């Protein structure tokens, strides 16, 4: 059979997957480059097809290849790096992969592989429905914006649908700038057709004929994979003037960002796609009414759009039956930072942080106790060990003053300096502020100064009071989430680790 699957995902590449692929090629193997399953501690993870399913070996280095071939890898021979049937691996088997069902399985450059694995079933279903019916299905599924704001996706689409304007846009926010997040990247590199299909469904639903994917420049592999997939979808009749013979037009282009975190904010992103400085716009008007080039525009995160095909394929109820409370469906959690088994876990809402950190993550990579985790990116709160039993649910997290955000979970061990991390939050905000509103532009720099003064013992009680007031000003006076949420990591660190915000003796 002579065929092996080796990920082309950028984390796998950073661990030597290209060299492994080349070594197998040199030995006469047919190498299929897939996305990553998201079990990063096993990357590069090499798989071979067996009658019972794909059998994995990992982490494989180029130097291991000869030994693997000698151990009869083609027939799933035993070897110290053998993992077993990969889909039976507990990390994967216990997940509920809806959005990520094809991740690591398909060749992201192959439209025929996508079709062979159930791709475009959602679009086919959508093409037999009216725009209103598609929007209703998305609303009924309970899908909420996975970028972090958790606004109901269907409601947003309905607003765009209701605008009696012929020129409308679908934009995908792929400016995944939050540290500790890589779910969007995995989709774009590993299963880009799912995102393209979701955007096409969105366009057909609301009557938009042009879509843009705004992708980070820090993700060159994603940009390349998207461009290949878009060209293939166009050639296959799934994009263009006549989508699947329906007579409906939908065009799609990639726009490359330029390294500004604030462009992950939706109005700032629209400014950037228009070729302008990424300064936040004042809302209202909402982008759904006056968005890109002043026209009604859907702005959705990669994960939201990539969840649409399965909703249309299997129906709203199937998706809604996963989850808890008002958080329906699944969430892609990204295990990052100081964890033994980092990677991607897609589970129904309701799984607790503790299960994620220990059952999946295996505890800290350093072997030291986990002190705190930051959930939801650099603007997310630090959650201490005493709150690890909180279920991953938008409302449950809001109740403890934290946020789920885009699902990134960054673990820190007990060597973490919480005051330094709080200071870093301000420093980051200052570096990335678009400068349009004063609380964010000035407050961020002042915040870092105040923490410096506090730790230096310069009137510490006054500095603490000042810090509290400054955070309130940022929270309520900023135009967007960058300034408005920077207090979350700062205040949570102060609240849960007050001892670390005391004057320090100079060393």
């Amino acid at each position, binding site marked *: 059979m002579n065929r092996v699957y080796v990920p082309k995902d*950028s*984390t796998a*590449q*950073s*661990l030597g997957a290209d060299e492994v692929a080349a070594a197998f090629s040199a030995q006469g193997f047919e190498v299929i480059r897939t996305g990553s399953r998201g079990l*990063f*501690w096993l*990357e590069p993870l090499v798989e071979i097809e067996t009658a019972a399913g794909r059998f994995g070996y990992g982490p494989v280095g180029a130097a291991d290849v000869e030994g693997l071939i000698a151990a009869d890898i083609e027939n799933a021979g035993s070897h110290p790096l053998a993992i077993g049937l990969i889909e039976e691996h507990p990390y994967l088997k216990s997940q509920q992969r809806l959005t990520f069902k094809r991740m690591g399985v398909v060749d992201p450059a192959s439209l025929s592989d996508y079709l062979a694995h159930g791709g475009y079933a959602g679009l086919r279903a959508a093409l037999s429905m009216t725009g209103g019916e598609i929007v209703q299905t998305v609303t009924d599924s309970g899908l909420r914006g996975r970028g972090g704001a958790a606004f109901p996706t269907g409601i947003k689409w309905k607003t765009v649908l209701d605008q009696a304007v012929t020129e409308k846009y679908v934009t995908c926010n792929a400016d*995944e*700038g939050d*540290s*500790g*997040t*890589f779910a*969007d*990247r995995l989709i774009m590199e590993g299963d880009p057709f799912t995102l393209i299909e979701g955007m096409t469904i969105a366009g057909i639903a609301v009557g938009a004929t042009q879509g843009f994917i705004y992708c*980070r*420049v*820090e*993700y*060159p592999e994603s940009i390349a994979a998207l461009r290949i997939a878009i060209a293939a979808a166009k050639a296959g009749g799934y994009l263009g003037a006549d989508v699947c013979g329906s007579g409906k037009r939908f065009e799609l282009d990639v*726009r*490359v*960002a*330029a*390294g*500004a*975190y604030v462009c992950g904010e939706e109005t700032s992103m629209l400014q*950037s*796609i*228009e*070729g*302008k*400085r*990424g*300064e936040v716009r004042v809302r209202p008007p909402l982008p759904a009414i006056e968005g890109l*080039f002043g026209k009604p525009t859907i702005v959705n995160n990669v994960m939201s759009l990539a969840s649409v095909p399965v909703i249309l394929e299997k129906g709203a109820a199937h998706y809604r039956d996963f989850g808890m409370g008002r958080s329906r469906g699944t969430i892609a959690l*990204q*295990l*990052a*930072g*100081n*964890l033994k088994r*980092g*990677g991607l876990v897609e589970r129904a809402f309701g799984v607790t942080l503790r299960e994620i950190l220990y059952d999946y993550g295996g505890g800290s*990579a350093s072997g030291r106790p986990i002190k705190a985790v*930051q959930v939801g990116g*650099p603007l997310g709160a630090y959650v201490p060990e005493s709150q690890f039993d909180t279920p991953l649910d938008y409302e449950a997290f809001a109740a403890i003053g934290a946020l789920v955000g885009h699902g*990134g979970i*960054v*673990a*820190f*061990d007990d060597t*973490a300096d919480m005051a330094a*991390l709080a200071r*870093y939050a301000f420093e*980051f905000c200052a*570096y*990335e502020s*678009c400068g349009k509103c004063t609380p964010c532009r000035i407050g961020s720099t002042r915040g870092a100064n105040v923490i410096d003064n506090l730790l230096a013992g310069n009137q510490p009680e006054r500095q603490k009071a000042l810090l509290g007031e400054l955070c309130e000003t940022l929270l309520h006076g900023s135009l967007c989430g960058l300034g408005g949420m920077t207090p979350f990591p700062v205040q949570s660190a102060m609240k849960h680790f007050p001892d670390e915000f005391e004057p320090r003796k100079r060393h």
Partner: protein
Amino acid sequence: MTSVDTAELQAVEAAIARHGHEPGPLIVVLHAVQDALGYIPEHSVRRIAEALNLSRAEVHGVVTFYHYFRTHKPGVRTVQICRAEACQARGCQALERHAREKLGIDFHETTADGATSLEMVFCMGNCATGPAIRIDGRLYSHVTPERFDALLAHQEDAQ
């Protein structure tokens, strides 16, 4: 006018010709210029403004707003170090210090011999296997100070 300038002018004209007609083209054009030249020369600002019917202030404003765009020629190779939280949780501060000392430059600077530019980035989506760096196009995981030295030395050998 030197031949380098001619090559630069041609790259700018090519970027305008290829992308100037797209909706909201400025950032697309700037990317094309930087892809070709490694930076956005000051003289190109006037030409891009003129071609896209924008003011020089508008073009300058966009070039300087975005961290990615450079207005000075970079070194032969560019090393990007991730400074974001997930890499901090795996020890990137020690790597940052080491890299600055080793190269004798700060972030956003180029070594005196023009060999290496050092940039900081906030997240490359490689958050489970940090500290992460990128040397030109290539991403690396688990970069300890020792590994950093080895990667740079290996690159020098290859050149």
